């Protein structure tokens, strides 16, 4: 066992691993799931809310979804207190960029800044890493809508669809088969998805409404197979307004979430009958 290399966050083990970073990632696998899906006309982020007690006062703020600036937002899986520090950093960076350039920060630069901050805690200071994984959703004129995932190591990558938190592997495998698949009614003719170019061309990017339904479907899979009640999940969308210049960031109301859940239930029932 490489136990003696566990405690120091900034030391490699003989196998070339940073154990503290790996343990931080483990901590996140116990947190409420977050699903992110890139759509034609926007981004959807759905999160599982873990309500620990009925006595908790209903909160106006979310423990899952946070606005970083007018054109970027994130969802959190992991230690909320750790997340708050990083979210402050992201907001500061976005604000400072627009102070310096009088322009919106390109999304990837914002993500990279947060990740560089996290990376420092894996290399200097003897402080533990942040126990948070993020899904970042943002829009900029350079690359349109973008979805990024980052973890305690400070690594990040761009995704069309992904999941973090509890049961994220199950969520990701469901996304792999369902994202971009042809709509229901084409079963039996569906070809096996292979890794060559033909498969790439067949991916049909969903619109926000369809992405919402897929996100709920994925959440229900990761939340132990039951279709979650709207109170247990938070559905967030980012789209552009009519002018095509300003972002619209919305968390769905309970009524709107209920509607999406009902649509998913109807879809699953129809597929079951077919």
């Amino acid at each position: 066992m490489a136990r003696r290399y566990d405690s120091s966050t900034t030391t490699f083990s003989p196998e070339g691993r940073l154990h503290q970073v790996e343990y931080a990632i483990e901590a996140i696998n116990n947190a409420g799931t977050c699903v992110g899906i890139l759509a034609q006309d926007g981004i959807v982020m759905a999160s599982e809310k873990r309500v620990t007690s009925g006595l908790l006062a209903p909160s106006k703020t979310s423990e899952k979804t946070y606005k970083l600036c007018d054109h970027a937002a994130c969802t959190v899986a992991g230690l909320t207190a750790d997340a708050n520090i990083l979210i402050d950093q992201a907001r500061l960076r976005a604000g400072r960029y627009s102070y310096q350039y009088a322009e919106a920060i390109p999304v990837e630069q914002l993500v990279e800044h947060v990740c560089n901050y996290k990376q420092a805690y894996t290399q200097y200071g003897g402080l533990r890493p942040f126990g948070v994984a993020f899904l970042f959703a943002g829009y900029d004129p350079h690359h349109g809508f973008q979805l990024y995932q980052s973890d305690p190591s400070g690594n990040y990558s761009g995704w069309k669809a992904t999941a973090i938190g509890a049961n994220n592997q199950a969520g990701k495998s469901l996304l792999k088969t369902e994202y971009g698949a042809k709509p229901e009614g084409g079963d039996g003719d569906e070809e096996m998805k292979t890794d060559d170019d033909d498969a790439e061309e067949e991916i049909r990017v969903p619109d926000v409404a369809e992405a919402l339904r897929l996100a709920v479907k994925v959440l229900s899979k990761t939340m132990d197979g039951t279709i979650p009640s709207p109170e247990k999940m938070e559905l967030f969308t980012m789209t552009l307004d009519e002018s095509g210049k300003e972002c619209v960031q919305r968390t769905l109301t309970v009524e709107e979430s209920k509607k999406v859940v009902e649509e998913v239930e109807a879809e699953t029932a129809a597929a079951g009958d077919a």
Partner: protein
Amino acid sequence: MDTVFGVKYDGGVIIAADQGNARSILMYQKNLDKVVPLSSHSALGISGPNSDLVNFSEYVQKNIALYELSNDGMKLSTHAQANFMRGELAAALRRGPYQVNVLLGGYDAGAESSSLYFLDYMASLQKVNYGCQGYASSFCLSIMDRDWKEGLTEDEAIAIVEHCMKELQTRFLIAQPNFIIKVIDKDGVKVAKFGADPADT
């Protein structure tokens, strides 16, 4: 005293400047290029003491280059470059000001448009259709006021600049025999004309 002009036209912008480098009673140089390319599609016409002229323009130029290197080739828009410069001028103002007055011209491929910005040493920033820095403004702004209109071609814009240069040569006390004229459009920054070759060292 330096002269810098800028004229925006449809699809580009002209930046022109005299080529003299002088102090007190001495003329050091007659082929200085005071229109510094900041990026592939922007140039800065800059006036002031040679120390600040070079220091400030190189500082901005290298920061813009660093941005492109750090961000996978992403370009800063002309608007962003202008605001960055204004921030630097403002920060230095109450410490040790850059005594430079500039005209920034650039072309943005995304928006398919050109823009011209006036900045002075007090960190004023104004987007304009045409502008002058130095004594030239007393002679030439009125010419530009009359001649400039929306939808100019490159040739018409150069004609305005040459009209202004002619006026200075006739009426301005200080002789400025050499001017360098640069054009910034979708193809980048290129020299249209110079009085004395800046490369002649």
